[in-house]
C-alpha cells in the first residue's frame, strides 16, 4: 500500500533519542488536551549483553538498539461506514444500515470523563462518526472537574476493582458536587443518553426532567467492588433504564436490565488494518526480528499481572526443543515507576539470551504493534488477571493461533482448542506453544476460527449493530421476536 510507504517516509526514526510528542488531532473528540508523554527509553535504560551466538551481527545490533519511532504519526482520517463492506460483507452492512434507517433523526448523547487517552475515548472516537454518518445525530460531551474530583474518581476506580478505600462524607460530597455542576451545565434533550463509567453516573438526576432513555455503560469490572463505594453508586445506577457490561463476570445484581456488549476493535484502525508485507519486514528489521524462525509474541504493558516473566519461562521450556524467538513488546515502563521495575525483572529473566527481544514502545506504536502481531507465529497473552483482553482480540483478528491465560474476558474469546488454547500455568503454556509449533495445520485452523469469532463478535461494526438494536428496543421501535 502506497499509504504505508508515505507513512514510513514521514516518520522520524531515531534510535535511543528522546523526542517530545506533538499534539495529535483526534477526529471527533470534544476537547483536546493531550498530555505530553516522554519518548521511551531503551529497555532498562542500559544496553543488554547477549551471549555469543551464530546470529548475524545485523540482528544483534538491532536487538541492542531497536529503531523505535520517537514521534507520533499524524492521525489517519476515520473510516467511512462503506469502508467496512469488504470486511464484514455487503449483506451484513445492509442489515446495519437498515437498523440505522429506522432510527434516523433520533438523537443520542454520549457522556464520559475524558476526551483523549483510554479505551472509552478510543471507542467513541470511532463509533460516533459512524452513527452520525448513518444520520443518527450523536453528540459527545465530557464532564469537567478539578484535581480533587479526579483523585476521588481514581480512588473509586481502584476501589471498584477491589482495592482498599476509606469512603468519607467529604469524598462523597466532592463526587456529588462535581456531578451536580456538570448536570447544571449540560442539557439532555436527546432521545437516548448514554453515560460511560462511574465518574458521570450522578448525571442521572437529570433523567426526571428529560424524556429520553438513559443507559449506563460500565467498562470496568465490578465483580469484586469495595462495598462502601458500590453501595454509594448503586442507587444512582439503578435509576437508569438499562445498563451495559463488557462481560457477564463483571456485573452486580441490579434491579434494571443488564446487557452484554463485548468490547470491540476497529479492523480499519492502525492497530488492526491490513499491512503490506514490506512494512512488516521493515518493522521486524528495525527491531532485529528474524522472520525465518518462529516468533512468539506477547503484547502488553510491563505489568506483573500480564506475567511477562512467566512467558519467558515458558519460552525457555519451548526453546529446548524448538528454535524460536520471543518478542515482549509493550509500554508503561517509561512513565510508570512500577512498570520500570517490572521491565528490569523481565530483562533479568531474559538474561543474555539474544532471542528474547524486549521492546518498550511509546503509545503511538499502533502500526508497529500491528506489524509485530502479523509477523508472529503465535500470539501469547499469559495474563494472571485481565479485563477483556483486547490484545487477544487483535491476535484473533489477525488469524493467529492464540495461547492465553483463562482469566477475565479471555475465555469468552478463546474457546479452548477451537479458537485458541487456554492455559493455567507456565508448563501448560510451554506445552501448548510446542504443540502448535509442531502441528502447524492445527495452528492454522485455530487462526481461521479465531478470525471468524472476532469478526462475528468483537468488531466495531458488531458493536454499532448492538447499539442500534438497543436503541430500537429502548425506544419501543422493535420488539424481541416471539420465537420462544
Amino acid at each position, binding site marked *: 500500500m502506497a499509504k504505508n510507504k508515505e507513512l514510513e517516509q514521514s516518520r522520524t526514526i531515531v534510535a535511543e533519542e528522546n523526542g517530545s510528542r506533538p499534539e495529535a488531532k483526534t477526529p471527533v473528540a470534544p476537547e483536546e488536551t493531550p498530555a505530553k508523554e516522554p519518548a521511551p527509553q531503551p529497555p532498562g535504560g542500559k544496553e543488554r549483553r547477549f551471549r555469543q551466538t551464530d546470529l548475524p551481527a545485523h540482528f544483534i545490533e538491532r536487538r541492542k538498539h531497536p529503531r523505535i519511532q520517537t514521534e507520533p504519526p499524524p492521525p489517519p482520517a476515520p473510516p467511512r461506514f462503506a469502508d467496512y463492506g469488504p470486511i464484514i*460483507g*455487503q*449483506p*451484513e452492512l*445492509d*442489515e446495519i444500515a*437498515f*437498523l440505522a434507517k429506522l432510527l434516523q433523526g433520533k438523537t443520542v448523547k454520549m457522556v464520559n470523563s475524558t476526551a483523549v487517552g483510554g479505551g472509552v475515548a478510543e471507542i467513541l472516537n470511532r463509533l460516533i462518526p459512524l452513527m452520525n454518518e448513518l444520520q443518527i445525530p450523536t453528540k459527545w460531551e465530557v464532564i469537567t472537574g478539578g484535581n480533587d474530583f479526579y483523585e476521588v474518581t481514581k480512588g473509586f476506580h481502584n476501589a471498584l476493582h477491589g482495592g482498599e478505600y476509606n469512603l468519607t462524607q467529604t469524598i462523597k460530597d466532592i463526587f456529588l458536587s462535581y456531578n451536580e455542576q456538570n448536570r447544571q451545565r449540560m442539557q439532555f434533550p436527546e432521545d437516548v443518553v448514554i453515560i460511560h463509567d462511574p465518574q458521570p453516573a450522578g448525571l442521572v438526576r437529570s433523567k426526571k426532567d428529560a424524556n429520553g432513555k438513559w443507559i449506563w455503560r460500565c467498562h470496568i469490572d465490578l465483580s469484586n467492588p469495595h462495598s462502601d463505594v458500590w453501595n454509594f453508586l448503586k442507587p444512582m445506577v439503578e435509576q437508569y433504564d438499562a445498563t451495559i*457490561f463488557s462481560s*457477564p*463476570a463483571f*456485573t452486580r*445484581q441490579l434491579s434494571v*436490565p*443488564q*446487557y*452484554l456488549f463485548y468490547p470491540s476493535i476497529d479492523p480499519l484502525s492502525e492497530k488492526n488494518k491490513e499491512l503490506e508485507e514490506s512494512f512488516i519486514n521493515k518493522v521486524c528489521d528495525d527491531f532485529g526480528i528474524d522472520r525465518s524462525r518462529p516468533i512468539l509474541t506477547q503484547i502488553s504493558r510491563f505489568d506483573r499481572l500480564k506475567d511477562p516473566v512467566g512467558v519467558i519461562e515458558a519460552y525457555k521450556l519451548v526453546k529446548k526443543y524448538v528454535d524460536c524467538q520471543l518478542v515482549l513488546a509493550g509500554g508503561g515502563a517509561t512513565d510508570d515507576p512500577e512498570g520500570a521495575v517490572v521491565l528490569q525483572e523481565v530483562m533479568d529473566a531474559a538474561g543474555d539470551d539474544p532471542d528474547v527481544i524486549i521492546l518498550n514502545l511509546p503509545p503511538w506504536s499502533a502500526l508497529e504493534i500491528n506489524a509485530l502481531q502479523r509477523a508472529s507465529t503465535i500470539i501469547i497473552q499469559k495474563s494472571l488477571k485481565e479485563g477483556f483482553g483486547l490484545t487477544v482480540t487483535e491476535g484473533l483478528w489477525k488469524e493467529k493461533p492464540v495461547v492465553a491465560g*483463562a482469566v477475565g474476558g479471555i*475465555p469468552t474469546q478463546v*474457546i*479452548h*482448542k*477451537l*479458537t485458541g488454547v*487456554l492455559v*493455567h500455568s507456565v508448563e501448560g503454556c510451554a506445552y501448548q506453544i510446542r504443540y502448535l509449533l509442531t502441528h502447524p495445520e492445527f495452528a492454522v485452523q485455530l487462526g*481461521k*476460527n479465531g478470525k*471468524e*469469532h472476532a469478526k*462475528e*463478535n468483537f468488531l466495531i461494526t458488531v458493536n454499532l*449493530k*448492538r447499539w442500534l*438494536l*438497543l436503541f*430500537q*428496543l429502548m425506544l419501543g421501535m*422493535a*420488539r*424481541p*421476536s*416471539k*420465537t*420462544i
Partner: protein
Amino acid sequence: MATAPQLPSTRERAAQTPFYFNSASHLLRIGREKATNLQELLEAIRNCPEASIFQHTFQTLEEHHFIKEGFSNDFSHWTFAACNEVELAERLAAIDIREFISIAALRERIIHVMESYLQKNPRAAARPAMEPFYLMAADLVVVPTPYVARNLSEFADGMRKVSVHSIYYHFIDARLRLKLNTNDFSVWLEQELDLARPAAKLNEIDIYTATLEGVRRSILRIIEPEIGRA
C-alpha cells in the same frame, strides 16, 4: 469440459406467495443465574427463563457458526472445558436441537441428561468448575432484507446474497416458530414450488458438522439442479 451455465426457464414456476428473506439480530441480556459447579448448572437450567435455554442451545450455534468440529451447545462446552466431565459433555453435545419444537421439551431433555449423569457420578455435582457459567438470554429482532424470491432462480440468487444470520433465522430458528421439524426454506419450496424432494433434502443438512456458509453451499447444491425444472 466446460458446460454452459444453466439459464432459468422463462416459464419457471412462480410462487403465489413470494419468499421474503429476513435476518435476525440479537442482543444479549445478562441473566441472574450463575453456576460454579454442575449441581448449580442443573438448578439454573431448571429455573432460568426459556430465553436462556434458547441462547445457549439455538443462538450459540449462530454465534459459533464458523466452527464445524466439536461445538454443539454452551452447556456441553462448559461441561467439557471447565468441568472436565467428558462423558456428560458428550451426552449434552448429542442433544440435537432439530428434534425439538419447543424450548420446554429441550429443557426437559437437558435436565434428564444431567440428572442421570449426576445420579451415577454424585461426586461430580459439587466439584468446582475452573470458570463459572453465566446464563444469558437473547433478545432477537427480525430485520428485513432487500431479497425477495418469486421463483427458484430468485430464491437461489437470494440464498447466495443474504448474510449467514438470515440463513440461521430461516433454517434453524424457524423450527421454534413453525413448531415443526422443518425450516422456512423447505416449507416454501414444498408449498409454493411443489419441490417436495429438494425440500426434504434440505432437512438432511447437518448443522452440527457444517458451518453456516457450508449450509448455504449445501442448499445451493440441492436447489440449483432444479432450476429450470421447477
